């Protein structure tokens, strides 16, 4: 897929996220919309190795959604990647669904591990990076965290460990949308510039516009091929609720479903973004 097509894919997935959450009547649109371009770049920009027919492909790259509440973003990405039928997306949060409110790896082979309790994904990713190195496998490990999530102390235990272990096969992406449930991260409990913290622990740090798909693809492709022993942190500046005017930059849309009217308006706005692909 070229980057225009990836952008179109991301736009389609934004609509899915809103439809899913609208149908469920609950869920987390803000942080799903802020990270969907990152997911699109990883899965559709030719970055990650995966096989929808064989979710446990030995040579696959690992992806961990540490910010598990962005499950709708993960589900729509996996569905569009062919791991399960997109129709199933509308079962989100319903009794009997495989699409739990937060990802459950027992129900979906294409989800590497269950997440939802914040702050744990980086440790898991670091452990897998160690395991792959021990196995002499070249696979890469990508993990997506929220910036609010970086208030969890375990993230920094893992940051220390990954640098000490020299995990050059690990890429941690921070979806830095600047907002958490109770308001702006800078007001709730200001952690300062997160990239500087990773750098202080010995990571190689890149900064990128988390909605600039060509830039994301270029950076991720470079990091996937990188040699060296430093783990990589990508601080992706994003907008919470990106793509829906009334959700953008609003902490109130962290964990709230749109009503029918809001959903219709959001879908209309996103339809206006569609690029004519001839």
């Amino acid at each position: 897929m070229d980057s225009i097509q990836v952008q179109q894919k991301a736009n389609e997935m934004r609509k899915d996220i809103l439809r899913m959450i609208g149908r469920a009547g609950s869920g987390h649109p803000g942080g799903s919309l802020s990270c969907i371009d990152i997911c699109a770049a990883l899965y559709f920009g030719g970055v990650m190795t995966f096989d929808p027919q064989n979710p446990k492909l030995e040579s696959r790259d690992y992806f961990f959604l540490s910010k598990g509440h962005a499950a709708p973003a993960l589900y729509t990405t996996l569905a569009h990647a062919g791991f399960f039928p997109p129709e199933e997306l509308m079962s989100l949060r319903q009794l009997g669904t495989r699409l739990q409110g937060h990802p459950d790896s027992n129900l979906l082979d294409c989800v590497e591990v269950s997440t939802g309790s914040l702050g744990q994904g980086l440790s898991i990713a670091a452990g897998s990076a160690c395991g792959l190195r021990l196995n002499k496998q070249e696979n890469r490990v990508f993990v997506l965290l929220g910036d609010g999530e970086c208030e969890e102390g375990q993230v920094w235990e893992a940051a220390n460990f990954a640098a000490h272990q020299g995990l050059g096969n690990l890429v941690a992406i921070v979806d830095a949308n600047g907002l958490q449930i109770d308001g702006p991260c800078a007001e709730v409990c200001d952690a300062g510039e997160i990239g500087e913290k990773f750098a202080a622990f010995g990571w190689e740090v890149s900064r990128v516009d988390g909605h600039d798909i060509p830039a994301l693809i270029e950076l991720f492709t470079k990091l996937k091929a990188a040699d060296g022993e430093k783990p990589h942190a990508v601080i992706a500046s994003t907008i919470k609720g990106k793509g829906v005017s009334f959700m953008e930059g609003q902490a109130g849309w962290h964990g709230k479903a749109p009503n029918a009217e809001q959903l219709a308006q959001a879908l209309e706005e996103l339809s206006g973004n569609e690029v004519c692909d001839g």
Partner: protein
Amino acid sequence: MVNLASKEHAATRKATREALGVTLAKLAAEGQPIVAVDADLAGSTTMQRFADAADDNKDKLFNCGIAEQNMIGVAAGLSLTGHIAFTGSFAVFGTGRVYDQIRNTLAYSKLNVKITPTHAGISVGADGGSHQMLEDLSLMRGIPHMKVVIPADYEAACGALRAAAKTPGPVYIRLGRAAVPCLYEEATELEIGHSYVLAEGSDATVIACGVEVNEALMAREILLEEGISIEVIDAFSLKPFDEETLLTSAAKTGCVVAAEEHSVRGGLCSTVAEVLARRHPIPCEFVAMQDAFGKSASYEELLVFFKLDAPSIVEAVKKALARKRI
């Protein structure tokens, strides 16, 4: 029937933690994909012995430093790449401090990680209440998908570690610091899901776990001199719990004493009470820590102070017998 230790072997005293490093090394030597993850206690837990046992093992011990939460996450990640990960630290940190990591990452995802911290219970001794973990069984037993095993001696600990390695999914094995007599013969194979009758008797059933099994066997000798015969069961597997072995014995004796070096709330005593209440309500007494933290002293002093020693079991048996006769 399991093989009990010979007199000579029984004279050997070893802590259950001693089994950890050497058993992991043996399993690795047999070709199992063993890795160990510790948090600055690899010497105390004996995990370092696993790393030192062979050149191939050196890079299979991951020391996370004093960062237990990360230790559990790293073990989770290792298990996702085909390894059987064993975690270390002391039980108070290796279960309590990381309860959420164990619940939400290991158990919810059914990961193949074995939680094997050491220094559980008051047998830590002089370090005091902050380090004496007395709620671990309660915490671990309450988690779905989790299996809980309590070795009574060194041989049972070796058996538990071997059994856990071949059992997919999370297993908690409670290991201690105190040297205790060997009750089982060398290389005894024990199974998760089983209790073992170590001594037969007819007047009362004493079901114990961990270091209390030896106390129960000593209580049996004391009671025999008074003409009272007790059956002693080692509750090796707390979860899944072997209800039938308990019920068979309880049906024969008519009263039960449960004994554990753990809070009376949520561990073996609770498990026994739950089973008896539901399936065979008879008099039942408990020898366990009450609603209290531990304190500094020697292990032997603490056993007496907290009424976990053999005479306390004797007393509990007599109470149960009196209730049976009413």
